[in-house]
């Protein structure tokens, strides 16, 4: 029963935050996808980290860690800590360039 209560409270809080945010936003694509370009470095980093942790959880990292131990951190998190920044550095920067077509056409 307690887990149901905790999850329900969490969902209500999320819904309230979403409702308040909806009233304060501009309802266009730039606002939805890019937060009106107001996302700073720390928020961007935390968002990227949370996205990756969610992906790992869906892939079963929690269960694997339970089965094999904390070494799963090395398998997933620390390799991503190198590969994702390298991907952003080498590919993301070229996608960001206005003439990205000349790199990827």
């Amino acid at each position: 029963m307690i887990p149901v209560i905790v999850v329900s409270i969490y969902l209500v809080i999320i819904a309230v935050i979403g409702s308040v945010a909806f009233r304060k936003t501009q309802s266009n694509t730039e606002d939805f996808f890019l937060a009106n370009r107001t996302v700073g470095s720390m928020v961007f980093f935390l968002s990227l980290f949370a996205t990756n942790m969610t992906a790992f959880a869906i892939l079963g990292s929690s269960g694997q860690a339970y089965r094999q131990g904390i070494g799963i951190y090395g398998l997933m998190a620390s390799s991503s800590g190198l590969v994702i920044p390298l991907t952003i550095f080498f590919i993301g920067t070229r996608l960001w360039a206005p003439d990205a077509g000349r790199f990827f056409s």
Partner: protein
Amino acid sequence: MKATKVLFLTLLIVLVYFLHQDFWNWKQAEPFVFGFLPIGLAYHAGYSVAAAILMAVLVKLAWPGHLENTESQAADKESKNDGGHG
């Protein structure tokens, strides 16, 4: 960018990537760092720091500034085209 610089940075990336495969820690939990942290986890905590340092080095030494120059050139070109249609 100079060829030696490119070679150095490439080898550095390859080295850091292969350091991730700490096979010498895969079959043991001890010694415990600070009394509780398995050696494998402590190694990867340090590895995460090393990866951050590598990225800082790459940003400092190999940032693709020519892409930012491309952006300002594209903006200039766009403003010239708008002037032509006036």
